[in-house]
């Protein structure tokens, strides 16, 4: 084995140790709730907690709504930019990247200033309205991933020609978008959806400062007050992310197996 290979393997080993060892440690600790033996007591405790179900369900619902409304915003936008405003693509890409460079806490304070109960748009005046505001903030957070996934999927089809073909056959915009374009960028939409799901399930700042019962603040609350349950929750949160990533891989491969030739 030459020096180059040894270096590569060392780098991989360091990376694996850096990521895996803490995870193993956390998992091992989550099994030690019962004194002197390994058990799943911490997981049982977590799953029997009513607040776990409530917050998990709330975040799950928010994630689904974020994905639906995010898709309805992103797919037509990416389509329109690609079809009619290609010169605006760099601007739109820059805007969609902003959530990565502006900290969530800055954004949420902006929301609280603009949408507080005494403003013209009092989103924080009621719980349902705050939920809508929170969903909007999640849509913004997922924008860099959702837009890129959809835009990349659109690159694989000839959007302009497909649109013109559908128009020549009498189709209007809604039919074109939902029957000709949407199904052909589904792999991108699903990829963006899984990332969005993972982001929403673990998000803390927005939900906490808008005072909504989401899974992120619950994780923090348990972490501050209990010993073993936080480790179990950390493993559960990782599992959610991994399942999302796994599904993303499956969807990507499914997309590659049937290339869209135009």
């Amino acid at each position, binding site marked *: 084995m030459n020096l180059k290979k040894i270096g590569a393997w060392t780098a991989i080993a360091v990376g694996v140790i850096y990521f895996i060892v803490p995870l193993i440690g956390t998992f091992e600790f989550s099994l030690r709730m019962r004194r002197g033996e390994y058990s799943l007591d911490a997981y049982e405790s977590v799953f029997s907690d009513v607040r776990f179900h409530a917050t998990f369900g709330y975040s799950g619902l928010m994630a689904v709504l974020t994905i639906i409304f995010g898709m309805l915003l992103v797919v037509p936008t990416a389509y329109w930019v690609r079809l009619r405003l290609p010169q605006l693509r760099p601007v739109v890409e820059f805007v969609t990247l902003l959530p990565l460079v502006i900290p969530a806490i800055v954004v949420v304070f902006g929301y609280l200033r603009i949408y507080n109960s005494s403003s013209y748009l009092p989103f924080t005046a009621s719980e349902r309205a705050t939920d809508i505001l929170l969903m909007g903030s999640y849509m913004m957070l997922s924008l860099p991933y959702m837009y890129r996934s959809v835009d990349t999927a659109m690159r694989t089809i000839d959007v302009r020609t497909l649109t013109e073909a559908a128009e020549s056959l009498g189709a209007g915009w809604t039919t074109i978008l939902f029957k000709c374009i949407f199904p*052909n960028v589904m792999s991108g939409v699903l990829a963006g959806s899984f990332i969005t799901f993972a982001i929403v399930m673990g998000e803390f700042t927005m939900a906490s400062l808008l005072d909504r019962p989401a899974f992120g603040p619950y994780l923090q609350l348990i972490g501050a007050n209990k010993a073993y349950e936080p480790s179990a929750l950390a493993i559960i949160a990782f599992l959610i992310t991994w399942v999302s990533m796994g599904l993303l891989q499956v969807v990507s491969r499914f997309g590659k197996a*049937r290339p869209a030739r135009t």
Partner: protein
Amino acid sequence: MAFLELSHVKKSFGQVHVVKDFDMAIEKGEFISFLGPSGCGKTTVLRMIAGFETVSSGTITIGGHDLTDLKPNQRNIGMVFQAYALFPNMTVGQNVAFGLKVAGKPKAEIDVTVKEMLDLIHLGHLIDRFPYQLSGGQQQRVALARALAIRPRVLLLDEPLSALDAKIRVSLREEIRSIQRKLGITTIFVTHDQEEALSISDRIVVMNEGRADQIGTPFEIYNFPRTRFVASFVGTLNILPGHVADGASGRIEIDGQAVHACRDLARLTGRSACTVALRPEAIRLGTAGDGANHLTGKIEEVSFLGAVLRVRVRLADHAISLDMFNNPGVAPPERGSPATVTFAREDVLIVEEAA
């Protein structure tokens, strides 16, 4: 009144005038080809008829109805694209049925039409295949069936054969023409391939720099090109600068040798220089009877093209090419040997410079 009329149609993109005052009248059931090099405006005219490009000025009518300002989905014009443009998420059957579903036709009628269209293109057995499971030729035939399924008033074909290999191109173009004749549908075919245009069209529009240089039957376009551009773009041609020696009798001098023309003599009046065009197949090696034109020179090059030998004869400043059938019993002419070329007066074409 013609079925499809384009009157004074112009199209500009900013300061660039892509189509300049285009006029054309097409009869119902005609097969018209727009022929020209890349960037001549042929596809832009087609896209204006389809409604994908707005018209800067002028009008487009079909059956007397002005559709200049109608949206593409309101025109009932079928279009076949170079890139096939089949919907990748739909099967062959679903692709063909798409326009009928959009029009809200009953399912039974859709099923019958889809079957009829697929039978027309001989692909009924591939109804459940997806586009990625088809060859290029099959995809284009499905695209044709899809465009025809809605019973369009006009069928537009935008270089539909360009992405296919040579053999498929020939068979598919014959198939397109046969289907067009069968259905009697008014068709406009855009191509830059002169052989394609000559072989399947009722009339050809030769386009150059946003204008129709000449509109005519393939026979007229090939044999009597009106401009130098048409002459050089359609077929192989010898273009020779001539000097009008005697306009009244049609005598022209090429490289100091006299040539007589019997066509377009009126155009020679008042000019000292002209452009003479000669098709290689109209010229023969050797002398002929009285009345024919003769030019003498030396054989400069002999190219073997299989069934044909192309011989280039150097006159003085200019060379002239001629085609002769390959006869295995006769030795090909030798390079450097003196030669006389002969052509009839009727074959001397005097072409105009483009306006």
